[in-house]
């Protein structure tokens, strides 16, 4: 009992304050046991990781991104997109149907695959994808508060391609092999400019702490260092393998590359990997370039303002990014590498110079 009380104290000391739902929360807090649950839910670290901007929103985001992407693509392509599954919402739950179908479909592990790795790696791949969520702050709602959040997020993101390459290796198929090689090559091409762009922003703000970064963005970072902004966007497209850089999993060329042999739930897992990566990178992008969680505050929402703004900005970033898919064709691997190693790297260095100059003596 004492332990529970201690826990309660911990939760209560760091609870979200949302005036809008306070009338509901207050009576709930009187009920024994249930109050523990409510307190846990409203405990800032827990809320940040599990609800917003963490897993729950991630899930909703996934459904939204996939639906929005398909709908927007369809709009550009003179057609309607998913609709009949639920007409009143214009087919918004299409991704749910697809997800359910994948969930209940047979997961085939073919004879030549390396069975344990083949099954484990898609699940393993979630660790580097989901860990950064713990470090992404939204105002005072944050999982683990650290001044080194930005480098940490970048470090975890860099682990993802390794799992993808491993997935391709475990699949033991020709196209998966080619896809893995392509992924590895692309990784080198985008990772360096990407990290340099992030470093330039760190120089610019004089700190690797997201709080400092957001604080200093009275003018959004996108305007302070537009070159870094551009480099970040392009390397984001490359990193999440979206067109025109959808090279590692080029459907028509190498049949989804590393993921060619996956089916059922396992494919569902690997398919959302890129989208989750996109979500995390967009969060980082928002913090670095779009002023993070700053925005007009609504008193009634209290602490919820910050995560809400962060998520809204992120969704806008993703929504703009998905339009690229219906505009461009896929580059060839050598062309993409050339872009990565020449143009992108050059721009990244310019961005670094801008960052260093502007951020001279401890940031702007």
């Amino acid at each position, binding site marked *: 009992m004492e332990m529970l009380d201690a826990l309660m104290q911990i939760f209560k000391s760091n609870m979200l304050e949302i005036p809008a739902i306070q009338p509901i929360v207050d009576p709930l807090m009187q009920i024994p046991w249930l109050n523990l649950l409510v307190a846990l839910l409203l405990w800032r670290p827990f809320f940040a990781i599990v609800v917003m901007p963490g897993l729950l929103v991630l899930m909703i985001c996934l459904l939204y991104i996939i639906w929005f992407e*398909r709908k927007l693509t*369809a709009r550009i*392509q*003179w*057609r*309607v*997109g*998913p*609709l*009949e*599954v639920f007409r009143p919402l214009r*087919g918004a739950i*299409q991704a*749910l*149907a*697809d*997800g*359910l*179908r994948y*969930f*209940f*479909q*047979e*997961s*085939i592990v073919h004879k030549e695959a390396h069975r344990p790795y083949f099954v484990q790696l898609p699940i393993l791949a979630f660790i580097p994808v989901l860990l950064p969520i713990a470090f992404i702050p939204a105002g005072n709602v944050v999982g683990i508060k650290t001044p080194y959040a930005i480098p940490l997020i970048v470090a975890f993101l860099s682990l993802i391609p390794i799992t993808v390459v491993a997935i391709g290796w475990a699949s033991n198929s020709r196209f998966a092999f080619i896809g893995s090689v392509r992924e590895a090559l692309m990784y080198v091409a985008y990772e360096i400019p990407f990290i340099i762009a992030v470093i330039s922003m760190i120089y610019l703000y004089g700190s690797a702490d997201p709080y400092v970064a957001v604080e200093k963005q009275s003018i959004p970072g996108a305007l302070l260092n537009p070159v870094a902004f551009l480099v970040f966007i392009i390397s984001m497209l490359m990193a999440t393998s979206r067109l025109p850089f959808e090279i590692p999993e080029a*459907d*028509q060329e190498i*049949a*989804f590359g590393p993921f*060619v*042999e*996956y*089916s*059922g739930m396992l*494919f569902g897992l690997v398919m959302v990997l890129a989208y989750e990566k996109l979500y995390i990178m967009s969060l980082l992008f928002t913090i670095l370039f779009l002023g993070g969680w700053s925005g007009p505050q609504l008193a009634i929402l209290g602490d919820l303002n910050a995560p809400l703004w962060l998520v809204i900005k992120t969704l806008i970033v993703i929504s703009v990014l998905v339009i690229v898919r219906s505009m461009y064709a896929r580059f060839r691997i050598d062309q993409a590498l050339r872009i990565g190693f020449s143009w992108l790297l050059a721009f990244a260095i310019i961005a670094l110079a801008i960052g260093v100059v502007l951020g001279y003596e401890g940031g702007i």
Partner: protein
Amino acid sequence: MDEFVKFINSGVLAPFKRWGTKWSLWPVHLVTACCGAEFAHAFACGYDGERIGALSYGIARQTNLIIVEGAITRKMAKVLRITWEQMPDPKFVIVMGACGLNGGIFWNGYNLVKPSEVVPVDFFIPGCPPTPEALLRGIRQLQKKLETGDAESSADFYDLKLKKGKLPKFLPKSPKKISVNPCIVIDRRREVDWETGKKLLESFKVLKVENMVITAKNRIALRVSADRIREVASELRKMGFDHVKSVNVIDLPAEGKFIVEYHISSYSIREFMPVILNLFAEIPRAKPEVDSLSDIFPSADYMEREMQDLFGVVFRGNPWKGKFLLAPDTPENPLRKDFKLQEEVYVGD
């Protein structure tokens, strides 16, 4: 494991599974024949199959529906079966197009297999090709089947109960008239007003062919003996006739010979562009061998391989051995006249 499968199929979660599958029927990209054009129309912006949850997708492992688009040949049948086996359960098959049902216009062809004998089929769609609407109707019917559990056809035919009548003693004969002793003349002279042709004939005199005739405007037939065909061809090549438009073999079982024809024309000399020379030679049917022209005219290569497949005529010097166009289990030399096809039936029983 079986209990688990049973639980998924009929337990508490079954409605969710059915609902998810119903609205997420993704056809795999397995283009089998020309109905693929209408398939593409059904999933392009004119009809947009994605509207009803069907998204055409690349790889068999990640999809759950095969739409067989028309004719399945012997070669393709294996692929169809492999693709079907690659797909995870639950999986469905819709066959569109008359060729896929019962052969359609190719019903007595030697290279066709019925898809319903290769994979279990859920729905059949008639038409040649079926309209995109018909294909979407098929998907709708499949969705209905997933919802209610039983397959229903979308059209109901009225049936009149009548007693069978007596067949008359004589039935009208087939409209086909096939000559018993066909007489084939490739180089039949026709009078045409064609100046260049006459000049060409003059210049061809150096070739010393057995016979040369203007068969129509812009068409000249040159008969050579089989052992001189290479010689004449390389002469023609030097004259500016640079490519082969067609390689043809005609089977004459009554006379015990094959006629091998090369239709040669020119791209490099404007004057010769419309001219098609028919260089032909006769070879014995018992020993069907002729020199290949594929090194003189690389454009003849694939067509020689094809003729090798279809007639069993050996082109000496063509590097290709074995089957090119046909599957290993196709009947040998199907285009020879002694390979007979199934005859039409005009009276139902």
